[in-house]
């Protein structure tokens, strides 16, 4: 990655990460993060910060949150031992089954938590952006559950490739607004959601779907998603008596990954691997791997690693998976990469699709194309490092991907 730190800066950051000192009071994860928004949103973010301080660790809020997670989302999600993959890869492979969470992905953990927070803060409506549609569906469902009007912004390109999710959002009572500006995918949807929020910063709650954006969003999303890693850590200890050698997750904005990684950060012997969308190659515009190929900059509220040209213009990205098709990454991942606590690599479209097919056949599980990037990365690691215990965040199920799978894996079948 292209962000250089001196040895002593790196030592300080490592020590701070060990002490869980981030984000600091300015919303920084070391050099990354912050709050780069139009002035209109500053009071709204200040109010959100007050709400976060008051509620996010309040016992009553947590009781309601965990009650919804257990009785409505269906948590704890299982930890499945992947017998056949283990055999084929020469490893011990464990799958944390976020695909079995209500609405089919980890996104629901964040949505139900944030919509609960929105209610406490007295918001009149909730808006959300979505790429794969999973965060849109999760937010629509959470809003229906808690009685909040919901508007979801979705790029027109994504509406086509994730069509099943558009209908689900509408059935769940959300208004889906197609976004035809910019790149017509997730980034444009975030821009449009921000424009909506700027228009009504007092009455509207913006339920951001990944560990990105202005402070305190990366923190809120991490706290709400950390249930994934906390459960998985307990489960794998119960089942094997040991911690994993490697924890793996796919990284779009980085919400499932930070939720999985954060509870393991202090476990010095646990290595971590994040997989970004390698698309069809390493060139600008051919992938969505912001850590592997990006440079530092500011997009949509935070300083992090971005895919941009030499003039600071954000590049269009490519990935077969809508949920990873984003030119930036959450600031905490930029930090974890810069201190090399987590290793980040790219997985290309074809390898992700092959891993999806392999997981279907071997384990009877259809993973999301996003999650399949994690499977492919885990396989690559397993083949190079035999006999390791590997814990994989299976962030979602692939039902939503049928239009893409019809065009790709199923093209020649039938």
């Amino acid at each position, binding site marked *: 990655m292209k962000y250089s730190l001196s040895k002593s800066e790196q030592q300080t950051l490592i020590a701070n990460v060990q002490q869980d000192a981030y984000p600091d009071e300015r919303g920084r994860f070391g050099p990354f993060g912050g709050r780069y*928004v*139009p002035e209109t949103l500053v009071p709204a973010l200040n109010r959100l910060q007050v709400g976060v301080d008051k509620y996010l660790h309040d016992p009553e809020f947590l009781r309601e949150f965990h009650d919804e997670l257990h009785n409505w989302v269906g948590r704890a999600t299982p930890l499945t031992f992947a017998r056949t993959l283990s055999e084929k890869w020469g490893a011990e492979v464990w799958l944390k089954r976020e695909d079995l969470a209500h609405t089919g992905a980890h996104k629901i953990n964040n949505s139900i938590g944030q919509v609960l927070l929105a209610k406490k803060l007295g918001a009149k409506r909730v808006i959300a952006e979505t790429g794969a549609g999973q965060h849109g569906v999760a937010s629509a469902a959470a809003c229906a559950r808690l009685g909040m009007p919901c508007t979801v912004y979705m790029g027109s390109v994504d509406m086509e490739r994730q069509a099943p999710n558009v209908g689900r959002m509408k059935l769940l009572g959300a208004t889906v607004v197609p976004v035809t500006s910019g790149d017509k995918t997730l980034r444009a949807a975030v821009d449009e959601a921000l424009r909506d929020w700027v228009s009504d910063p007092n009455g509207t709650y913006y339920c951001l779907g990944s560990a990105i954006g202005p402070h305190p969003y990366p923190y809120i999303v991490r706290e709400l998603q950390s249930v994934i890693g906390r459960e998985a850590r307990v489960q794998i200890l119960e089942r094997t008596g040991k911690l994993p050698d490697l924890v793996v997750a796919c990284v779009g904005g980085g919400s499932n990954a930070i939720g999985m990684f954060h509870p393991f950060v202090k476990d010095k012997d646990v290595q971590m691997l994040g997989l970004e969308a390698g698309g069809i190659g390493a060139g600008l515009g051919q992938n969505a791997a912001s850590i592997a190929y990006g440079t*530092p900059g*500011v997009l*949509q509220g935070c300083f992090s690693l971005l895919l941009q040209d030499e003039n*600071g213009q954000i590049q269009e990205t490519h990935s077969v998976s809508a949920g990873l098709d984003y030119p930036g990454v959450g600031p905490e991942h930029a930090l974890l990469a810069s201190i090399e606590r987590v290793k980040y690599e790219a997985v290309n479209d074809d390898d992700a699709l092959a891993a999806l097919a392999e997981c279907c056949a071997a384990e009877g599980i259809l993973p999301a194309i996003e999650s399949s990037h994690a499977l492919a990365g885990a396989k690559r690691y397993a083949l190079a490092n035999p006999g390791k215990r590997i814990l994989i965040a299976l962030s979602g199920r692939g039902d939503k991907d049928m239009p893409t799978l019809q065009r790709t894996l199923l093209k020649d079948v039938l």
Partner: protein
Amino acid sequence: MPARDSISTAIRNRRATGQPALIAYITAGFPKKEGFIQQLNAVGAVADVVEVGVPFTDPMADGTTIQRSSRAALEQGVSLRWILQELTRAEVKPQAPLLLMSYLNPLLAYGIGKLPEDAARAGIAGFIVPDLPFEESHELRNALDARGLALVQFVTPVTPTERMQMLTAGSGGFIYAVTMTGTTGKNVAVPEEVLQYFERVKKISPVPVCAGFGIRSREQVQRLAPFIDGAIVGSALVEVLERGEDPAKFLRSLRE
């Protein structure tokens, strides 16, 4: 006189004639890259201050008009580097002070180290950065300050009074008072509570108060006139340029 003072001086001089100053926004290189300097001069002949917009791929504070003009400029290869080169090279430039309006990332990519010097050489008096709130602005502010350039802050109808004091005191050139919560380009009605808001800003601000976002007509300017030192016209002017009409004529129509 440091370049930044030329901005407030130009606004106050116009105000002294009994009229609010006119601050005109154009997207550099829109509609055509070739006509940039000529257009700048046409606009600068009428306006008291000109904002030169640096196009960005993700203009989150802007409505559809400036999204469209930014995209068109980018497609022709307009960049901050090109804008500064053209301005430095231009033989004739407006008397009116020039500001660069840019989202933060193009400035970071250019390099905060060399930006103030290059901008000053190009005749730029200050900067407006819509996604850089005061709390994050120290590095850029200090760099610009050292070269005598202004960094303009925003206030909005939802800015609490205490914060408004901090922002107006910290603003260079003028304070950009947004007429409404929302993006650029919508037509604003200017209801009574908006006038009260401007009255509040005017009372607090040590620098000239300029109203922007959604200003399109002489009627709006007149209604705001008692409360402001300047009116900022962006999307409406960009639409005039888009239709191939005379920008000077349009700007004069706001003043008559």
